[in-house]
């Protein structure tokens, strides 16, 4: 799993550059700060943002331009036959680009040694975290993204020839614009998409009470004064859909697994807020993974999959209670949950009757325990315990919950400010606190100041965060990506989520190393090989004794 965050961006006093140019400067500044002037390009090979999980594919000509995030010049992926050993498939040959200048995209783009991607998306700098295998690692590498952004801000501020730029980890400008924080989860392909939609919807709609970041203003442009739990709720306008930039859905159907599509899908969750709270990030990833884990277990429980039986008695199934949680109007419920500060409003259920967001979250937690209790690892058990504890505190002790529930922490500050200075919800100072809550500069960011004062809970140490800025997680394919870039910076010609392209002098062409399984490419699998390879040529030689396959016709470069 992982989180990608588009940061809000603002030029300092007198800065006139447009946000796209400023965002590109952020990426360039980080490249300078990290001492990496690598020529590695992003590889779009294998990306397909218009493929829909419901089984069809949007025609590129019919798509809104903002949906076209891949490179149309690139060929479709070749069908790799996975072979055992270190590789996810055969090495593939690719022509060396004839004209590097022409091929070099203006869009700033950086592959980080921690396995993340830093680039410009829709006029915002975006940090896409490396793939992580646990919610706790999700927190570490998400926080690392904040440090990356801070480093860029400091670098620009220190240089008299570059404009000052401020960055915010939020999702709204209060004028009607929203930008996203997307979670991605690897899900077994054999979980029917209908089931995902059915069981995820009530969960995603109601998890806001635990993981909302809080927002001043009601309505997309903050037309009405007030406070709500979620940054993102007012921009959710559909139940299920492919779009991410307009008519945003509760369940996004983009079917672009960045992995072997026969085995995996990547669930792209766009309803979530950008969180400064580490507990919120932890729960957002952890709870959602566990709900998906139940749906996966239910698929396995009904089949003869040899990996599934083991010692677990009985057949695993989706908890009966979850079937009754379907909401009568999910989109309306998103808005209601976000605006109900009491957490006591009943939401209409499809089968009649009502349930509060709190009750629905409780039912999901109970279901996770019921199905997965014997199978939880340490990190997952801690997620369950945190989920349980915070649901309890939301009912019994809100001031205590504010240490870990971000919207409550923000509300606490805002209510105190309002009381002290007798301010209405539409006062500029109140809105300024909301915006500056997430400023990445620790002396300016209000959440960062609460953290420094020990007023909010943390899950990652400063050392863990600074390590995560430089190093990849060791237990996903991000390890291989990050380490290859760190060890052989000049040899990695391009890299994407599901493959690396190496340029080695001893080879007549570029060589593409596929990484179609996100759970491989780990330190356990490839660490010794990397350690034994002083350069990328040696790595290639060790990866396979065989010569890479000949260039397939489809991999020829687009005609100039």
């Amino acid at each position, binding site marked *: 799993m992982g989180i990608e965050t*588009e940061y*809000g*961006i*603002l030029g300092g006093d007198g800065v006139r550059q447009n*946000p*796209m140019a400023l965002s590109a400067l952020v990426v360039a500044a980080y490249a300078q700060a990290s001492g990496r002037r690598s020529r590695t390009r992003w590889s779009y090979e294998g990306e397909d943002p218009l493929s829909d999980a419901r089984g069809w594919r949007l025609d590129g000509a019919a798509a809104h331009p*903002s949906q076209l995030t891949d490179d149309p010049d690139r060929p479709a992926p070749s069908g790799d036959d996975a072979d055992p050993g270190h590789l996810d498939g055969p090495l593939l040959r690719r022509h060396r680009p004839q004209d590097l200048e022409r091929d070099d995209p203006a869009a700033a783009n950086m592959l980080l040694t921690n396995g993340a991607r830093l680039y410009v*998306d*829709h*006029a*915002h700098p975006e940090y896409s975290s490396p793939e992580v295998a646990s919610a706790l690692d999700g927190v570490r590498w998400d926080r690392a993204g904040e440090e990356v952004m801070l480093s860029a801000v400091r670098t620009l501020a220190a240089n008299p020839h570059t404009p000052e730029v401020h960055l915010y980890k939020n999702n*709204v*400008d*209060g*004028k*009607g*614009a*929203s*930008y*996203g924080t*997307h979670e991605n989860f690897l899900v077994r392909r054999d979980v029917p998409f209908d089931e995902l939609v059915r069981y995820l919807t009530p969960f995603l709609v109601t998890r806001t009470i635990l993981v909302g970041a809080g927002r001043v203003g009601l309505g997309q442009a903050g037309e009405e004064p007030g406070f709500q739990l979620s940054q993102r709720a007012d921009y959710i306008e559909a139940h299920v859909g492919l779009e*991410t*930039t307009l008519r945003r859905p509760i369940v996004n159907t983009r079917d672009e697994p960045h992995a072997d599509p026969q085995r995996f899908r990547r669930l792209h969750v*766009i309803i979530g807020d950008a969180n400064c709270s580490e507990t919120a990030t932890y729960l957002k990833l952890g709870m959602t993974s566990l709900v998906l884990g139940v749906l996966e277990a239910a698929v396995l429980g009904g089949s003869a999959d040899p990996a599934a039986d083991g010692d677990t008695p009985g057949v695993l199934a989706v908890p009966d209670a979850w079937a009754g949680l379907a909401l009568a109007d999910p989109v309306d419920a998103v808005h209601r949950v976000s605006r109900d500060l009491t957490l006591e409003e009943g939401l209409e259920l499809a089968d009649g009757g009502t349930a509060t967001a709190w009750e629905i979250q409780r039912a999901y937690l109970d279901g996770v325990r019921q199905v997965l209790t014997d199978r939880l690892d340490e990190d997952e058990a801690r997620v369950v315990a945190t989920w349980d504890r915070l649901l309890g505190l939301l009912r019994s*002790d*809100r*001031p*205590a919950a*504010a*240490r870990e529930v971000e919207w409550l922490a923000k509300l*606490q*500050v805002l*209510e*105190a*400010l*309002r*009381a*002290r200075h007798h301010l209405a919800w539409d006062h*500029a*100072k109140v*809105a*300024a*606190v909301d*915006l*500056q809550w997430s400023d990445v500069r620790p*002396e*300016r960011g*209000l959440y960062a*100041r*609460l953290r420094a*004062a*020990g*007023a*909010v809970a943390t899950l990652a140490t400063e050392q863990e965060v600074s390590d995560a800025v430089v190093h990849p997680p060791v237990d996903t394919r991000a390890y291989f990506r990050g380490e290859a870039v760190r060890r052989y910076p000049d040899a990695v010609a391009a890299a994407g989520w599901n493959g690396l392209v190496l340029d080695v002098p001893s080879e007549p062409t570029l060589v593409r190393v596929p990484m179609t399984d996100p759970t491989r490419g780990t330190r356990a699998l490839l660490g010794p090989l990397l350690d034994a390879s002083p350069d990328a040529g040696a790595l290639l030689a060790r990866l396979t004794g065989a010569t890479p396959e000949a260039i397939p016709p489809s991999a020829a470069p687009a005609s100039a």
Partner: protein
Amino acid sequence: MTQQHHTPARGDGEEPDAPVPAAVQANTQAVDDLLDEIDDVLEQNAESFVRGFVQKGGQ
């Protein structure tokens, strides 16, 4: 910078005798401290800062 210390205004319906855990006390103190220095931390002109915070839509 003002030195008055109001308690956050969420007292309605709270049990006055309920013991306040240490973590929560620290929390309240931190919020008060933050408000004491808020004018130094917030951008100088809150109104123009909020008005100027205009973003392009994203994903």
